[in-house]
């Protein structure tokens, strides 16, 4: 299998764990995997990207126009990285914006709505709302796992839901495993139209 998956968001949103789970699950299913992370200063509230390359790859970064899927934790970050998407690729995006402090100071009114509208016009997109989906958990910290559920159930990830669930169990501290599994099911439910 050859799949290139780009995960993006803002430092602190949990993109790195999401990419590690996808990579490990793909590996468990017998694939060769490469990935690359943003580490360093940008982690402090800057734009962050993880590239996950399943199958044949030389470059650690996904070439522009070659990504099968973009998993975006933030609307503007999806647009910022849209150049990576294949013409027939899919974007799964959170509609809740993270407003940079500079934006708040200048009050340009960025609210993410233009971004979502633009994405809908340009590509295949699944829009989810982190606040609505995470309300029952009391924190959007579980959103990365919800998003994995959406990605797995969308059928575009090429990795089974079971393999991802297994990695969640392995990588999350024991006392949070149940909540994270529930978060994953919430994500799956979004695609299946179930109201969990």
């Amino acid at each position: 299998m050859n799949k290139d998956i780009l995960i993006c968001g803002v430092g602190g949103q949990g993109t790195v764990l999401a990419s590690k789970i996808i990579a490990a699950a793909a590996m468990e299913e017998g694939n060769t995997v490469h990935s690359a992370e943003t580490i360093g200063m940008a982690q402090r509230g800057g734009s962050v990207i993880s590239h996950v390359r399943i199958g044949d790859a030389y470059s650690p970064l996904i070439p522009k126009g070659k990504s099968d899927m973009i998993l975006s934790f933030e609307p503007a970050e999806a647009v910022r990285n849209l150049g990576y998407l294949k013409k027939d690729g899919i974007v799964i995006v959170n509609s809740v914006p993270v407003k940079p402090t500079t934006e708040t100071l200048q009050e340009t009114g960025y609210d993410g709505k233009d971004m979502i509208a633009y994405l809908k016009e340009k590509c295949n997109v699944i829009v989810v709302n982190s606040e609505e989906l995470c309300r029952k958990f009391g924190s959007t910290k579980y959103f990365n796992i919800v998003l994995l559920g959406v990605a797995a159930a969308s059928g575009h990830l090429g990795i089974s839901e079971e393999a991802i669930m297994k990695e969640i169990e392995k990588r999350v501290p024991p006392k949070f495993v149940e909540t994270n599994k529930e978060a994953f099911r919430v994500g799956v439910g979004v695609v299946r139209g179930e109201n969990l």
Partner: protein
Amino acid sequence: MKREYVMGNGAIALGAMAAGVNLVSGYPGTPSSEIIETISKYPHEGLHLEWSVNEKAALEVAASASYAGARTLVTMKQVGLNVASDPLMSLAYVGVKGGMVIVSADDPGPISSQTEQDTRRFAEFARIPVFDPTSPEEAFTMIQEAFDYSEKYKTPVLFRPTTRICHAYANIDVPEEFKPHAFEGFVKDSKRWVIFPRLSFANHAMIEKRNPEIGDDFSDNRMNFVNTDKPCEKVIFAGGVSYAYAREFLKDFPDIKLCKIATPYPFPEKFALSCLKGAKSVMVLEELSPYIEENLLKLAGKEHLDLSICGKLTGDVSVSGENSYENISLILSKFLGIAIGEEQIDLSSAPSLPVRPPVLCAGCPHRASFYAVKQAMRGKKSYFCGDIGCYTLGNAMPLDMCDTCLCMGAGVTMAQGFHWVDPKMEGAAFAFIGDSTFFASGMTGVVNAVYNEANVVICILDNSTTAMTGHQPHPGTGRNMMGDIVEKVSIENILRGIGLKFVETVDPLDLDKAVDTVKRAAAEKGVKAIIFKSPCIAIAKSTKKAEISEKCIQCKKCIREIGCPAIVVENGKVMMDTNLCTGCNLCAQVCPVSAISVK
């Protein structure tokens, strides 16, 4: 063997362990920090592991161990090599017995660094070999060979991955068990281990004779690789991650000649010459400096080769910044005359994107420290000298509290320079330095200030960790990389020991008290120190949250004054993002109508 999914830095760590490394030292620095952290997570009995106080100390600790025959690994980022350059230049003359590999991670871009310096140049300057991996997989095997070369030629060697190698993940087959290398122990021999002019003269001659031999040895090593022996008119040379980008582009063109230079110094001339057979034009793909390109030009001159060499010097490859698949594919399509299809979505009509400069985290105590100094010195001309760490982000609006930032420890000494050129300033010259940076290279600057009688206020932002590079312990934290609980080195005692009379420790989140302390420090003559002590918010997980009540008059003073990412405006109203807020209480102390409370 077992298959693991590890970061490039993990591959370097595991490769060194597979080579039986006995001692590992280093100082944290992006993109190199995870090497030592990886080793600490694997069983490593019989191996000494340490975060040293700085890179110079790390290299010196390893040097004597290598004299004794132990295999040693020293890790740092490229600017750390500048700090370690004093022992390195001499060690290159003296040489080693046990293999010594110095990892100096370069950062094209730069992504998280002050400079775009090139460790390959440093290797040539120090006259020692350098290895340049093109992938995490290669880094794992290459570092094992690097140890062998180091022992074979009795010289320390440099190993320079770049950010994209360090932070890329790949599948690596690693041994089930690691066995430390057996070594003889130190054999006294002052003619060999004590550097004197006579030894330097003799060894300099030996090194200059030896290095071309290493170059020939490298020419026979498969690490330097060419995909075809057939003579080709067009030849591509590449090093580091640029080679990976080139391979990705050339996937469908197996007949194009692509040469990898994995050992840039001493340059493998014979290998390069064999690749150039029949060549008319050459394209060189590399990052940072035109190192391979210059060596090919030298070779072409020496051998009277009639060919054109393109790269950074000819303007075909960008002289600064990192390469990418995209720029490499453009360069190669032009060079080879291959058309590339338009595969990207047309983004010309995209809405304008918010800029996202990195900022201090919500609840970061550094924000409060900077704000306290800003409040105390309002209206009085002062100088604010920053340093290397999270707190460099104190330069961002609205804090705007970082007038200078140069290198590790420089804030302490630069504040003194401002004092000498503006001794009658109304305010004061301030230095801001973190706890880890203070130990690394701030202390000597304080001695300098006392000795030369400067008037400065040294603000130590003590969050009890090395936050920016991933929360490594340091001498003030009370634990080390061997997992031991150790005596904490007290910053306050150091400052008093140096002779400072004014040393006060204050909680920056207690705003009034912090402002008062700064005012008193600024009013006194001489060298004063304030230790702003409060733990890094990423470690001291807080469950507190601030709430904004109806008393809020929407004046937005909180936003304008402290710029915390947790305070946002939604539908014209000031709101608290409770997912980010840590209840640090700074905004509550800034609010003019007491509308913010912490629960």
